[in-house]
């Protein structure tokens, strides 16, 4: 199981999928911050003063994480950020679903107008999608953790070998 989880092919696929999803999500929001601020406002969870900073910062954080994951540098740090972001997205959607407050996701920029019933149905799928992406984050964190332990083990072996 551990060997499968840290298989380089699986790790590569996980970080490419996550990275591309985050890049695709970031670009439309970077192009239109007011539209994203309106989407965040629709969730009715954030104070008014925070809408501007959130709408400006989040897309660039998504872009930075997406680039790091696609290019394969600082993977663990980027995976931790993406995990935190996905968890917060799930929480925001889940809270609004629980109070039956339909929202437009805003995940990939502005979307076509939908009815309330359609939006509520979409929200359930979006939570499932984010949960699936969280599994990829878990794989990346596990793989990088195992590599870290392996690296520590090798360092210990080398240092003990040198001491002989």
């Amino acid at each position, binding site marked *: 199981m551990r060997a499968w989880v840290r298989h380089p092919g699986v790790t590569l696929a996980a970080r490419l999928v996550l990275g591309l999803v985050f890049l695709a999500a970031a670009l439309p929001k970077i192009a239109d911050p007011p539209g994203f601020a309106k989407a965040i406002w629709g969730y009715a969870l954030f104070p008014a003063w925070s809408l501007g900073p959130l709408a400006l910062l989040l897309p660039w954080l998504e872009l930075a*994480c997406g680039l790091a994951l696609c290019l394969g540098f600082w993977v663990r740090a980027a995976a931790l950020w993406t995990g935190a972001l996905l968890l917060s997205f799930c929480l925001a959607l889940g809270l609004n679903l629980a109070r039956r407050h339909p929202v437009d996701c805003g995940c990939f920029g502005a979307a076509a107008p939908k009815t309330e019933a359609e939006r509520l149905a979409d929200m359930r799928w979006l939570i499932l999608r984010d949960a699936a992406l969280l599994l990829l984050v878990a794989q990346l964190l596990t793989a990088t953790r195992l590599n870290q332990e392996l690296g520590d083990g090798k360092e210990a072996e080398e240092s003990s070998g040198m001491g002989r």
Partner: protein
Amino acid sequence: MPSKPGATLTRMLALAAFAGSAALLSNALQPPSHRLPWSGFRPPSPVPPPEKGASLPQPPTPLVTPVQPARPTRPTPLVPPPAPRPSAQSTPPPAVPSSPIREISSQEAWKAFQGGLPFLDARRSEEYAAGHVAGAWCAPVWEADLEDRLLAFKAARRPGSEDPIIIYCSGGDCRDSHLLAERLLGEGYFHLLIYRDGFPDWVAQQRPMAQGQP
């Protein structure tokens, strides 16, 4: 490559710092219609979630519907609000004529247009450029230059606090016209008429339209 927890934290902070710097730079380079102020942004108060069980069906709306506006987010109006009118004091229940914000039907909007009343378009400026009510003023409630646009409107039309102003957006569940109305209410305007069906209805009725940048 193995990484220590301290290094991971540093890298996370570096990613956040990159995001912050890039956001600062890109926001400074954006055109006004796509720029957001970091602070001092005065978005309208969030729409409260509907109560349980009351989310989907709405009761049928009469031709003229009084709208109870949310409390204005900014208590410092440009124009000081006048003293309460005697009629509002004498009639405890919310009488239709005394409601500062109310929805109007398509027919009423058409009569207002024929009467030369000012129209404010609360949609995004791109939507305004693609098509708007002829003679309407662009007042995109989510864009950073809303203040300047409203000042230009006030300077040109000089509306009094009791003069009617028609506000519209995209109809349906579009809330931008209500948000703009709440903002204008906070600035001391007390006769704000929201064209409920909005621009799609105006197009469907084949009424006068214009295109182009504000």
